[in-house]
């Protein structure tokens, strides 16, 4: 059985330059939780897409706004949360059957397909996204 790694706490800005370092940190964390390489990559992709959506939509492209990324592992479940202080609008997670060549929405498709649970919880001053995946 894999020992639970110490929770991950990342305090960053919405700058896309942070995407790769955060993705890599979360992937290292997920690997330490016992996820297989394919799942590690999928979890990293979901965190990348969630962060990119925060920059694009919650912060309207601003790159200097705060983002908190936390990850913890308990039992057989990895939970990643992303907190922003943006517009607080809740994106739709409904299936997207439209033409794959139409732009937009792929990030949320990844979250919906690759995570076991995805929840957007509007906060008085932004949004809390929780994503969970079991080993």
């Amino acid at each position, binding site marked *: 059985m894999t020992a639970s790694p110490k929770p991950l706490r990342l305090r960053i800005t919405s700058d896309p330059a942070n*995407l790769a370092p955060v993705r890599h940190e979360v992937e290292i964390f997920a690997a330490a939780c016992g996820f297989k390489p394919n799942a590690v*990559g999928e979890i990293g992709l979901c965190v990348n897409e969630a962060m*990119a959506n925060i920059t694009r939509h919650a912060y309207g492209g601003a790159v200097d706004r705060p983002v908190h990324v936390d990850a913890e592992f308990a039992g057989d479940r990895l939970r990643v949360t992303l907190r922003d202080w943006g517009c607080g609008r809740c994106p739709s997670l409904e299936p997207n059957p439209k033409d794959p*060549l139409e*732009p937009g929405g792929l990030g949320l498709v990844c979250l919906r397909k690759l995570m076991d649970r995805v929840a957007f919880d509007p906060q008085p001053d932004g949004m809390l996204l929780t994503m969970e995946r079991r080993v």
Partner: protein
Amino acid sequence: MSELPTSELMPTARRVGDAIVISVRGEIDMHNSPQLRSEVLYLLNTGKPRKLIVDLAQVAYMDSSAVAVLVESLKTMHRTGGKVCLLNLQPRVKGILEISRLNAVFSICKDEQEALAK
């Protein structure tokens, strides 16, 4: 065959007949995909190829913004009846193309020779 402008992100680009063959290198996400977009669209708009062949052997990762660059390239090529062929998809790149249902939209070839012959 003629050489075209290159960069760290796009280390090779050359003209082969009526095709442009490029290679892309690195992890492509929203941080560097705008640069890739402008470089690829510049080649398409100035070179007016009938085919774009993209070698992704050195791309271990791409996010949805990089996929959007490929889609925009495809649409640009489609407007003039052209094609886009992708080569050497790494597992994570293959994964996001499958999730986005684009694996059936792009022409995916095993090597440059096959792509040039298509």
